[in-house]
Structures are given as structure tokens and as C-alpha cells.
């Protein structure tokens, strides 16, 4: 276990280095710098600005300095908002994004798993067909279609919920729903597949032969192993929820990390974009590590190497 952890943590370093290097050079190679748009600033000011951000140094030195600072999660001030440190922007935005994503994931699990179990227990009967067709529909409706439609129905027609912003609890409902629906559907499909695989195994037959009620067999014996595909999906799911939250934050004007990323990307805010990308990369890798550990807790047959 310890060797597994150290190995995985060590493996993260080259991966992060690849990402950091790629993003760094991509931005430096890109035509147009962050100050290109402000054409009428005097040359002296420009030199001063370049100096302030260390852009006057040779590329190698910039790169080395960037790596050193990045290792400490220090990306310097934002290019666009010089009075703010990228680190602070990330901390602020991530609080919001994490809440949005966390609720969405929780909602998806709380709804998707029971639906999947019901479908599996009723395999090839009406409830199964209905649930699976609905799940496929849920997977197919993109969140940037669902979001505006939810707003249209619940805010602009029924006046039940606010259409945007991130203030009280009632503003959470629509964004979380818009983000979660496709994962509800996907988790339901995964749970169904996992449960079907488990339910035909010998130990389930043994449990039934012992005279256990179907309820105990399904919920106590089968569910734990049947959840394995769902657990291994949690890593990619988190990545997709992050991607989805970029759109949702855009639609509902939520001040999360995704929104800062888009703003940073359109403004060529080098430091902000680099910071957000590196932050999300390391966050996802840590998450995948936890998922792998959780996997062994559920399935004692899996060994960590």
C-alpha cells in the first residue's frame, strides 16, 4: 500500500511536468502577447510591464523560474487583474466550482444508483426498458441545451427559481440539476451493467439458496461489487463535471473556476490560465488516486501494486 502510494505520487510529477511544459511553451509560441491589445500604451510603460512580469528575461530563465514557482503553486499576479494573485483567484473560484460539482456528483449518485439497481433487478422487463431509454436520452441531451431549457421553464415561465447567479440556496438548484442530469443517466447505466454482471455469479446463488430475502441479496451482497464500475467511473466523471461546470458557470453567471478559465483564455491571461490548468490537472490526479484506493476497499480481489 505504502509503495503503491509513493509510486503513484512519484508518477504524478512527470505528468505534471509534461502539462506545465506544454502549456508554457504553447502560450509563448502563440502569436500576440497579453499586452498586444493595449496598442496605445507608451513604449516605456510596456518595457516596465514586461519587466514586472519577467517577460524581458531569456525564455530559458522564464521557464525555469516558472517551474520553480509552479512547484510551490505560486503563479504570480494575474495579467488581467494585476492586483490579484492567481493563487487567490483559484482559491476563490474553486470554492464555488467545488460546491457546484460536489452537489452535482452527489445528486447523480443518489439518483443514478437506485435507478440502475431497479433496472438490473427487472432486467428485460418494462421498467428496465423505460429506464434505459430515458437514461440514453439523458446522456444525449447536452448540458448547454438542458441549462437554457431549465431556465426557460422554471425561471422565465413558472417563476419558481432564479435564472442566474450564485447567492442563496435557491440559486443552486437549476445549475446543479443542469450539470447532474447526464451523470445520473450514465451512472444508472453503469450500475445496471455492474449489477447484472454480479447477479449472475455463484455467490449470489449461494445467498439465495440460504433463503435470504431478495432484498438482502441485492442490497447487501450484490450492490457492493456491482458498484465497482461506478467507482472506477468517478475519476473520469469528476473530469467531465469540471468540463461541464465551465459551461454551466457561463450559462448561470456563476463566479467559479471555469468562468475564470474562459475569461483568462479569451484575454490571453497567461498566468491565470496556466494556474487553473495546472491546478485542475493535479486535482484530478489526486482524485484518481483516491478512486483507486476506494476500489480496493470495495473489491478485496484487487491488489495495489
Amino acid at each position, binding site marked *: 500500500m505504502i509503495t503503491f502510494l509513493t509510486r503513484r505520487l512519484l508518477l504524478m510529477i*512527470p*505528468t505534471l511536468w*509534461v*502539462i506545465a511544459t*506544454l*502549456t508554457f511553451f*504553447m*502560450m509563448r*509560441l*502563440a*502569436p500576440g502577447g497579453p499586452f498586444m491589445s493595449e496598442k496605445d500604451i507608451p513604449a516605456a510603460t510596456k518595457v516596465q510591464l514586461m519587466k514586472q512580469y519577467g517577460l524581458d528575461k531569456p525564455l530559458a530563465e522564464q521557464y525555469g523560474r516558472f517551474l520553480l514557482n509552479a512547484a510551490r503553486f505560486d503563479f504570480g499576479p494575474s495579467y488581467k487583474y494585476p492586483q490579484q494573485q492567481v493563487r487567490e483567484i483559484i482559491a476563490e473560484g474553486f470554492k464555488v466550482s467545488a460546491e457546484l460539482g460536489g452537489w452535482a456528483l452527489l445528486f447523480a449518485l443518489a439518483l443514478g444508483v437506485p435507478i440502475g439497481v431497479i433496472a438490473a433487478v427487472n432486467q428485460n422487463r418494462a421498467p428496465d426498458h423505460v429506464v434505459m*431509454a430515458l437514461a*440514453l*436520452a439523458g*446522456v*444525449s*441531451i*447536452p448540458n*448547454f*441545451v438542458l*441549462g*437554457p*431549457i431549465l*431556465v*426557460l421553464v422554471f425561471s*422565465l415561465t413558472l417563476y419558481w427559481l432564479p*435564472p442566474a447567479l450564485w447567492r442563496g440556496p435557491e440559486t443552486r438548484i437549476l445549475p446543479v440539476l443542469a450539470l447532474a442530469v447526464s451523470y445520473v443517466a*450514465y451512472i444508472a*447505466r*453503469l450500475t*445496471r*451493467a455492474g449489477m447484472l*454482471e454480479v447477479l449472475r455469479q455463484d455467490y449470489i446463488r449461494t445467498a439465495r439458496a440460504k433463503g435470504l430475502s431478495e432484498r438482502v441479496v441485492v442490497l447487501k451482497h450484490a450492490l457492493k461489487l456491482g458498484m465497482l*464500475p461506478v467507482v472506477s467511473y468517478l475519476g473520469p466523471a469528476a*473530469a467531465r463535471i*469540471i*468540463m461541464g461546470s*465551465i*459551461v454551466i458557470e*457561463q*450559462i448561470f453567471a456563476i463566479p467559479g473556476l471555469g468562468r475564470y*478559465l*474562459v475569461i483568462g*483564455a*479569451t484575454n*490571453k491571461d497567461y498566468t491565470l*490560465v496556466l494556474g*487553473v*490548468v495546472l491546478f*485542475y*490537472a493535479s486535482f*484530478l*490526479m489526486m482524485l*484518481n488516486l483516491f478512486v483507486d484506493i476506494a476500489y480496493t476497499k470495495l473489491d478485496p480481489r484487487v491488489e495495489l501494486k
Partner: protein
Amino acid sequence: MSIGIAPPATVGAESYASAPRSLWSDAWRRLRRNRLAVLSGAFLVLISLFAITAPWLPFLQDPTLQDLGRGATPPSPAHWFGTDELGRDTFTRVAYGGRISMLVGLVGTLVSLVIGVTWGAVAGYVGGKLDEFMMRVVDVLYSLPYIFLVILLLVFFSKSLLMLFVALGLVQWLTMARIVRGQVLSLRTQTFVEAARAIGAGTPAILFRHIVPNTLGPVIVFTTLTVPAVILQEAFLSFLGLGVQPPDASWGTLLSDGAKVLALFPWLVIFPGFAMSLTLLAFNFLGDGLRDALDPQGRRDGA
């Protein structure tokens, strides 16, 4: 194509009442029984034909034809899907948007197909150190939050359609490479490969003439599922303003524009959203049906 195991001729041919069926005719039979998949396929053929022939259809207008005097109007007999703020016909715009979305979906998938199949086939066939290295590359790329790299690529270089094709294709090939490698690993030890080697076929010939055609089943299934994924990602990028740029419009940009005026002209979101969701749904149904038909075992791995 002679794929599949023909029944050995020596075992009394008369015991086979019907003609031997190939894998493909068998799969076709299974697919036809899946009504949802057939319906989806038909729908996709129709909507593709519609998108391809859009410029020559008499009831479609010029997608860029503006009528500022008219402005945005709700759906009417003259404009089935209404018009936008510039008086452009939404039905026409959805048809032309479909052209771009489908084109991006198909070309992006093709790029991923070529890279993924080649990468996976070479890694699986050559094996050893090279295989290990190539798959490690795939592993590392897998763990990257690649959508950020796509965003960066589009922001910092160019937002041209070509860049979009490349960026989306680059993102999608990893799973394809893994699937093909797995197939090739199990195929390369089979006797027909040995036979090909015995008659002196070179490695590229064995790989691309003999092995790759035998991986087609899973590859077709995965390709059908990749097209909607690419369409979705294009729309995602376009929605953020990073994908298709005006005057071109895809379903993603139509949705993005419509979402901004949702409160005033909801039909500008509803119709493109409907067109896109239906297309994605059809691709997913067809992909599911194809998986059941071509790759019955594949069903167990995924949902």
C-alpha cells in the same frame, strides 16, 4: 471481405441447411431486429442527406440573408422555426449548422480513427519495449485534462475549422488506440497471420492487410460512438466562443447565440437544441445497436 470463420468443408456440407453466414450478415440480421437502432439509422441518413443537400433545397433560404426590418419573429408558416434578431430564417440556419456540426463530427472522428488505429495496431503487433513506451504515452495523455489543452490550442493559435478538426481528433484517439491494441494482441498469434508471414508478407502488409481488417467490428462500434462525442465537444467549444467562428455557424454557436436572448426569443434555443439532441440520441442508439450486433461481448465492459 472474407472475415469470420467459415465452417470446415469436411464436416459433411449437407448438415448445413442454410448457406454459411459470415460475421457481417449475422450482425446485419441482429441489427435489423433492433427497431430503435434501425429507426436511428434511418433518421441519421435522412438528416445527413438534408444537411448535404441544403444549398440546393428550394424551401431553404440563404442562411446569411438578413432582414433587419423583420427582426426576430416566432415560428410561422413562412418561417417554421422563426427568425433571429437579424431576420435570418432559423430553419435554414439549423440546416446549415447541421452541415458544420456533422462535418466536424465526421472529420474529427476520421482523424482520431487514423491515429488511434495506427498507434494501437503498431503497439500491439510490434510489442515489447515499443509497445510499453507507446502505451505509456497513452496513459500519460489519458491523465491530462485534455479539454484544457484543446481550449489553449484554439485560443493561442487559431480558431479555424482546420484547427478544430485537429484539436478534436487529437483528443479522441486514445481509447481507439487501446481498443485496437487489445484486438491486435489476440489476433497476432493466430494461424492466418502465421500463414501470411510464411508466404513472405512484410510487417506493414500483415498489419494493415490482414490484422487491421479483423479489428473492424469493435472499431466500427467505437467510431459510431465517437461521432456524437466529437459533435458534442465541438458544440461545447463553440458555446464558449472558442469553436466555429462567424459567419460559419454550427449547432453549438446557434445555441450559444440563442442562450443570450433566451428570455426574448426562446425558439432560437429550442430548435437547434432539439436538432442536436435528436442527432446525438440517434447516434447513441445506433452505436448501442451496433455493439449488440457486432461485438456482443463488448456489452459487458461498458454500460
